[in-house]
């Protein structure tokens, strides 16, 4: 890896911050769609979220180009954010 600082910082942000957002949003979406009591669905989402988080961090340093990386991370997060927004049950916090 070329240790060029702006590019590196960009990947770091995509992985650490983008990864957290992606993992959290995906877990929320999962907790809405899983066919089980909501506490169990939330617990399942949380259990899986860290694997996804780690995956995104690894991907952030494996992706060929920064553009593709950010497009991927933001696209993933945005897609599941919208899906979760559409599916959110009445009485959810948002």
């Amino acid at each position: 890896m070329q240790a060029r600082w702006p590019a590196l910082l960009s990947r770091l942000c995509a992985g650490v911050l983008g990864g957290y957002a992606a993992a959290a949003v995906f877990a929320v979406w999962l907790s809405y769609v899983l066919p089980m009591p909501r506490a169990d669905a939330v617990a399942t989402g949380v259990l899986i979220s860290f694997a996804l988080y780690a995956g995104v961090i690894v991907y952030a340093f494996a992706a060929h180009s920064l553009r593709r990386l950010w497009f991927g991370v933001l696209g993933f997060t945005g897609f599941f954010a919208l899906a979760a927004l559409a599916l959110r049950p009445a009485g959810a916090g948002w």
Partner: protein
Amino acid sequence: MKGAFRQSMGWLHTWTGLLVGWVLFFMFLTGTAGYFDTEIDSWMQPERPIVQNAMTATAAVDAGRQYLESNAPNAARWFIAVPSHRFPELRLFWRMSPDADGKRGRTGRARLDPETAAPLNYRDTGGGQLLYSMHWRLHYMPVRAAEWIVGVCTMFMLIAIVTGVIIHKRIFRDFFTLRFAKGQRSWLDAHNVLSVLALPFHLMITYSGLIFIAYVYMTPVITASYGTAADAQDSFFNELLRRTDGASPSGVAADLMPLRPMVLEAERQWGEGRVRFVEIRHPGDRDASVRIGHEWASPVRRPPTLTFNGANGELLRASDGIYSTPLAVRDVLLGLHEGLFAGPVLRWLYFLSGVMGTAMIGAGMILWTVKRRAKKGDAFGFKLVERLNVGTLAGLPVAVAAYFWANRLIPVDVAGRVAWEGHTMFIVWGVMLAHAFIRPSARAWVEQLWLAAAAFGLIPVLNGLTTDKHLGVTLPAGVWELAGVDLTMFAFGAAFAFAAIVLGRRGKTLKSGACHPGESRGPGPQARSRLDATAHGALDSGIRRNDGPIEGREVVRPNDRP
């Protein structure tokens, strides 16, 4: 493209590992010691009598109830931990009712003699519990801050494991490969072998470590379903744990039924000696409940339980401890992490895996310096890493040994001695770090390893001079819980001494310029040192190379050869 991918993964592995390596080393070391927390507790309270027969569950509930009724009569919750072989004392906990403004009630605890049920008064000590809790709680900081630091480091560890597996070119072909006396190659071998052989353990311990604090990190996921109200988290947990009873007492007084028949019923269902605890909610209330828990018997952390109505003694329900799949998965992960179900052999295997993990991190940290010494040996960053390595990989073990010394040497009646046991450990670690920065690093390694050897190796002697629970007594009596601590300490001392001898000898050989160490010798003593000395084994070329500039002369570096 495959090459570039592997390269970037290698980069990620190196830097995530380096950045948090010292914290991870601390976590692994103290956490590994934590597998023997109870044994260390006993060792650190030599006043405890050696108990041959554990108290029966029925006797325990009678004695426990009697104590709790006179010492915590209005509690919201009583907890009686039945003595077992590993925890021979009768341990009691209680929590008072919440006060008027809804704050959680005060808690209390007591330990009773398993034969006479008299309160016990042993010396105050942090014991194995303090050592164990440091691995996630750190020290000198609020719990929340520690959880975030530990969480970030654990995430880094997970990344390091994933990338490590990706960049390991020949995970199966090099499965058994460990070549001594080949400088950098040897360190890489050691790091690889220690990682791969205990990979299931490393992966389990890391992911489950994250799951412990998952709800702190992933609070937004709970919020998204439960809202932002103050009790949102509570209602989540109540739903998850299927809590229905015991929320609040009725306020109508009713005598608590005798506990003995309930315990006998549990023993009839599970077998004698299988009851681990009895928990009573709202004793003295009409809505009192008595929950009886099964001993640790499987990786599932939540035990099977029987719940009785406290006012009429009726069996309300039996639970197998599994409420839902996600909760069971979580319980298994956490249960595997803690290993409370492990008997003596499995506990040793856990300990061994933990030692391998600690050594893996140490070997990785040393590998970082060995790899870069030739090119960047004078850079500030390199020197910083090298010094921190000495002060942590050798210095932290010295500090842990000092914690054991403090337990014996701080007078029993000194106020705040628990705090000072902890202070001793961190003061010594600080001194070791300072020493590493003052001394030439080659010398610092040897000196600190010798210090570690003495500090660990003499613990049985110290124990013999200060207590009557030394090896001369514990070995003939077959009290392995106590003898094991002394013997393990001695073994660590021997391992550190071995590492120090190997390093010291190599340093001398180099100065006399007689040969290139590691190239012309057979698999001498240095060959055997690596694994038993864990991370502090032969520092191999690192030490030799460092002597060069210090002595003002350039040294041929065997590792730099093709």
